[in-house]
């Protein structure tokens, strides 16, 4: 569904992605791991055009993504480390805003779907609350519901639990696990190794702007091939 070939990205003279080639197939759950600064976020942001790449290509169903900005944004949902909920809108409005504005869904219909999504993430009682009243874990669950309201075919997660207090990590991971069960295609940047091992079909290990390993979790965690992956795993496990 997404084909990445020789993807390069520089900020000024700083080359952050040095040629990434990989494929994301429909229904796959992919965990992207690696040291901080290795380019994981930049990779993810290139996938939905929050950054424009300088080299290589990203194709969605065979078409260059650069030309399908609006189409692509409808198909790809994104969840951010810092939630980025709209603070001046209620939880319900946060979720219904884009479906109404972008997909032109009627308000009633959008609200009905939003309430179903809120139910699914266990926050139906918070529909009328403002984001400032929510805990971090609740905010992130709303953010996931907001992205899902656009009925994306792929969901991108950039360290969705890194800004949370430890006791809230679980509730967000649980929502993501439920999403995995629905067959959603997911690309997840994470430092939660246990979670990656459990849900991922493939692990992409990045280091210094390169895709160093692309393996099944069992292989990657038991027998990492490269020394860089071995060193990284020793530090985090």
């Amino acid at each position: 569904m997404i084909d990445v070939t020789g993807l390069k990205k520089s900020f000024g003279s700083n080359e952050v992605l040095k040629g990434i080639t990989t494929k994301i197939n429909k229904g796959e759950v992919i965990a992207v791991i690696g040291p901080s600064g290795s380019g994981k976020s930049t990779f993810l942001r290139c996938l939905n055009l929050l950054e424009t790449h300088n080299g290589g290509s990203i194709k969605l169903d065979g078409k260059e993504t650069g030309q399908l900005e609006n189409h692509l944004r409808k198909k790809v949902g994104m969840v951010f480390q810092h939630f980025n909920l709209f603070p001046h809108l209620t939880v319900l409005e946060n979720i219904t805003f884009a479906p109404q504005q972008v997909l032109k869904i009627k308000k009633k219909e959008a609200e009905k779907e939003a309430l179903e999504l809120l139910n699914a993430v266990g926050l139906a009682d918070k529909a009328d609350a403002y984001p400032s009243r929510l805990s971090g874990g609740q905010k992130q669950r709303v953010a996931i519901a907001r992205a899902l309201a656009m009925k994306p075919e792929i969901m991108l997660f950039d360290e969705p639990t890194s800004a949370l207090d430890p006791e809230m990590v679980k509730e967000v991971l649980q929502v993501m696990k439920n999403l995995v069960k629905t067959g959603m295609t997911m690309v997840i940047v994470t430092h939660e190794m246990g979670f990656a091992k459990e849900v991922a079909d493939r692990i992409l290990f990045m280091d210094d702007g390169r895709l160093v390993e692309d393996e099944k979790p069992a292989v990657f965690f038991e027998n990492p091939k490269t020394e860089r992956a071995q060193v990284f795993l020793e530090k985090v496990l």
Partner: protein
Amino acid sequence: MNLDFAQLVPSIPYITYGIWVTLQFVAVSLVLGFLWGTVLSLFKIGKIAILRWFADAYTSVFRGTPLILQMLIIYYAVPQLTGMDIGAFAAGVLTFALNSAAYISEIIRAGINAVDKGQKEAALALGIPYQTMMLKIILPQAMKNILPALMNEFITLTKESAIVSVIGALDIMRRAQIVGASNYRFFEPLLLAGLIYYLLVMLLTLAGRMMERRLAKSD
């Protein structure tokens, strides 16, 4: 010391009526200045280079020349160029609107830039079009940073508005001068005018503080 307020008393209503004129003048200028300033600020943060350049040059010129000069140019130049006599009040409003738009565009730009970058990214990622994002996501949040600064602009305008008396608009200042000239006593009416301006500014300052407190509460 030779002060005589008794002689001023019959003229007090004439002078205080100027409050209405001045407030009307400032309010209309501010609303027009705000609308035009919003457009300029969107030029400044937009992607179109020529509009960015225009808005920056505009701001630079209006901030870099005396207000009274701008007003005299508009007051005398508009009739000369168009053959239309626009009158002192309209010339004053036009000047103040054009001038304050330059300052307000900077206020709004700063307010927009202070909104968390993640808001824009979240909107983009949801496929929300640029215009909708600006109007419904970014600007409402920017208002929180903008309103207090806008209130300051209101106060500045109220004080500076006294220069429209130069082209003969019948504001507080002009009325005080007229009364002074007819009584051959200037100190008393000018003192009264000063008191009125001061009270106006204090009132606006107070209103601004209350507004800030209410904004802070909604966090």
